[in-house]
């Protein structure tokens, strides 16, 4: 097997973050090389360097077929390095053949060669052993079938390396088998495949070698034959827990939220209790249904079946308005998209959710401003006044505005989705402190987080999600990176 791609001592720095540090990596023809690591370990950054989307820092080298190259999106494609991202990038209103040839249409004297494009599409689909037809509209295909079209598109031009980023993230098991079959075909024909997946089963099924990244560094690289899953997981974890945030514990109170067999919005059969004074963490890989559960409980996505009780009283959350009346607060993951009114002032943002709870029709701008100023002071929001537009605040201060909005509703059950995403270290600690203060007041917190140290340091108990279901619950000393990871990506039979 000869080497096709080699990275040596690649680093990538973003303002304030060292995303990759001194990574060396190589890929041979006819090999499937798997990249493993937790959320945020640097896998995506690495493949973006390979696809030319990011330029690595000075000092690293990239070799293609033994020659040193610099990769841009154009040169990467010219060398036949194709990246297939997790989200399908397709033209929904065009058919399969048109998608495959989009941007590289075959023409003769300016006219499209429809027949020829159809013929070649059929050919490549046959090669991939797919029963798709060139005339099917993209819109009508399942996401697994769209993935096949994307791979077919990559194969249509010269291809040497195929990078698959989480190709099976939202697939049924039959679709997964199709993708794995395709990977085997590519491998047999001498292409190099870089395969990224959260699911160790898949890695062990098709992979030849695995490289483990953690916090932007390469931890290990080894052949998969003869490797044990536990060894792989051990390498993916391994942060020093003593460096984590130390949080004050609060005595656990009565149950405020009971969830029984909740199903809907992509989650199945979820049951747990949430008590006053505790943080219940929800861990799992991105796309495992964690945020989807919060949406169901908050009434912004439909509940199919199951029971929800708040303070012992059965509720049917049909819309957010009712959830807010039931004293639920939902700090969403996408702060700017779903949490804030960016062009509006801090005051206007803070008062909006509590309108549900007030009876009177009037609202006085002066009172709104006073409420805004109150939370600016209480949450230490760095701003000249509550009249500042939220768009001008930093990420941490924006998050505090979201918190102010929910504090103002007098809520008791807090849903935090990625509470500290995109926030600098100082503001992060402030947010954690605010969360502990909530617990002291007898509030309860349900926290979804992909940040392992955050899950481990903040949670009293953790439930781990895998493919929309609960894979297990951890408490006390059993909340470790290794245990969480084993439950969230390990053997599905375990």
């Amino acid at each position, binding site marked *: 097997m000869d080497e096709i791609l080699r990275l040596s001592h690649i680093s990538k720095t973003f303002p304030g973050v060292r995303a990759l540090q001194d990574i060396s990596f190589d890929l041979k023809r006819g090999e499937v090389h798997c990249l493993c690591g937790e959320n945020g370990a640097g896998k995506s950054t690495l493949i973006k360097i390979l696809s030319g989307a990011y330029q690595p820092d000075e000092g690293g080298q990239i070799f293609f077929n033994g020659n040193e190259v610099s990769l841009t999106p154009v040169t990467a494609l010219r060398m036949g390095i194709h990246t297939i991202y997790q989200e399908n990038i397709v033209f929904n209103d065009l058919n399969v053949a048109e998608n495959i040839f989009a941007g590289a249409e075959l023409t003769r004297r300016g006219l499209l060669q429809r027949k020829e494009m159809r013929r070649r599409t059929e050919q490549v689909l046959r090669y991939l052993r797919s029963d798709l037809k060139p005339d099917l509209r993209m819109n009508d295909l399942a996401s697994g079938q769209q993935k096949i079209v994307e791979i077919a598109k990559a194969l249509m031009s010269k291809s040497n390396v195929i990078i698959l980023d989480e190709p099976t993230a939202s697939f049924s098991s039959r679709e997964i088998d199709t993708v794995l079959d395709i990977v085997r075909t590519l491998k047999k024909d001498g292409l190099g495949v870089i395969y990224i997946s959260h699911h160790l089963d898949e890695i062990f099924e098709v992979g030849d070698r695995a490289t483990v990244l953690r916090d932007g560094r390469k931890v290990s690289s080894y052949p998969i034959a003869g490797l044990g899953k536990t060894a792989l997981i051990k390498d993916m974890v391994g942060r020093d827990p003593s460096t984590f945030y130390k949080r004050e514990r609060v005595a656990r109170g009565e149950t405020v939220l009971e969830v029984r067999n909740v199903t809907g919005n992509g989650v199945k059969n979820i049951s747990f209790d949430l008590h006053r004074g505790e943080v219940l963490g929800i861990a799992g890989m991105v796309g495992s249904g964690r945020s989807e559960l919060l949406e169901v409980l908050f009434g912004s996505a439909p509940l199919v079946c199951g029971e929800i009780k708040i303070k012992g009283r059965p509720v049917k959350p049909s819309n*957010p308005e009712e959830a807010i009346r039931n004293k639920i607060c939902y700090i969403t993951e996408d702060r700017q998209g779903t949490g804030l009114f960016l062009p*509006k002032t801090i005051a206007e943002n803070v008062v*909006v*959710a509590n309108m549900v709870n007030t009876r009177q029709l*009037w*609202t006085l701008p002066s009172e709104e401003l006073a409420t805004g100023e109150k939370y600016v002071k209480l949450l230490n929001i760095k701003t000249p006044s509550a009249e500042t537009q939220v768009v001008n605040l*930093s990420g941490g201060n924006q998050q505090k505005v979201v918190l102010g909005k929910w504090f103002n509703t007098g809520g008791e059950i807090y849903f935090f989705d990625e509470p500290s995403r995109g926030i*600098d270290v100082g503001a992060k600690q402030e947010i954690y402190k605010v969360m502990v203060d909530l617990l002291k007041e007898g509030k309860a917190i349900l926290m979804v987080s992909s940040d392992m140290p955050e899950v481990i340091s903040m949670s009293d108990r953790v439930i781990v999600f895998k493919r929309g279901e609960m894979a297990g619950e951890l408490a006390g000393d059993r909340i470790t990176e290794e245990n969480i990871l084993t439950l969230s990506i390990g053997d599905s039979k375990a």
Partner: protein
Amino acid sequence: MSETHAANPTPQARESLFKRYQNLTVFSIYASFVAIVVLVQLVSSGFARFPTFVSPVNIVNILQQVAVPGMVAVSMTMVMISGGIDLSVGMLASLVSIIVSLGVSQWGLGVWPSIALGIVSAIVLETIMGFIISRTRIEPFIITLGGMISFQGIALLLCNSREVVMKGELDFLTTNLIQGVKDPVTGLILRIPPYVVIFFVIALIGGLLLTYTKYGRRIYAVGTNPRAAFLAGIDVKNIRLSVYAIQGLLVGIGATMLLARINTGIITLGQGLEIDTIAMVVIGGTALSGGRGNIVGTVIGVFFLGSIANAMNLLRLPSEVQFLAKGLVVIVAVAAGDVSSQISEFRALKREQAWARKEAAASKKGGAETQASVQADMQDSSA
């Protein structure tokens, strides 16, 4: 970090007047327009005559012309702040005029029931459009375009493509409220009919509704970020529906007033009303994308657009020029709003850079520690 903040007031603290008072830009353009027209009149008459453009009789004249489009512009502002648009108001007004005039002159319904029928029809039709817009993902532009065409069809069917002439049954709506008052400048009789007053009352109510009620604040929230509004417990669908219902009410009232003026129910009655009102609203600074705008701005826009034709007339320019002038005003007013906000952003950036340079120079003496905090601050503010 907080100490450096305390020592140097944040650069954002000083805002330009134009940014603070959002209607100032369009108001100053309008004021200069008025000033230019007055100046031209003065110069051309050799400073011998009072400029007729600002004479009471002319102002009252303009008021009569803009009152009805102004009412519709108030509800159009609400629709557009919620993120929608309504192209159907013109044809709906024609339809209402035909229903009311038919009711009075042919169906024998009596005056008030006919008016009520007209207004209720407008509310119902707008509510149907609002229902479709709020319950589907179809663009309001398309729904109301379809509405516009269908209303034209209904109107033509009802009147058999003929005009419906009345015998002055609605004249009471055009009585002069200030009988006997004369213009001290020209000596002409001043007329203020009820609909002028109704326009101001509606504008006042609309302004208060948008600024001082929960309902109004929620319209802004829905227009700014519907997803966040939904998650903040706002009934996004019904808010979007309700603004169209209000639009129906005001189009109904406005169309009745127009009908009273010309005494004939006719398909051309509301022609171009949608263009005029949307122009008025955008001149007043309301964003097509929703979430931004206010009634004071719209009222300025109403007067601005309404005085253009009048000024052209007084300056003895051919009436064909007025469309060009109106079009240019829309572009200039909206562009000026954008330019002024770009200028204030640019100035804020300059101030921030100057401030950072000063900090950096100071820290060279003070040591590396403050340097780091300045950088952190800059990242903070740029994020």
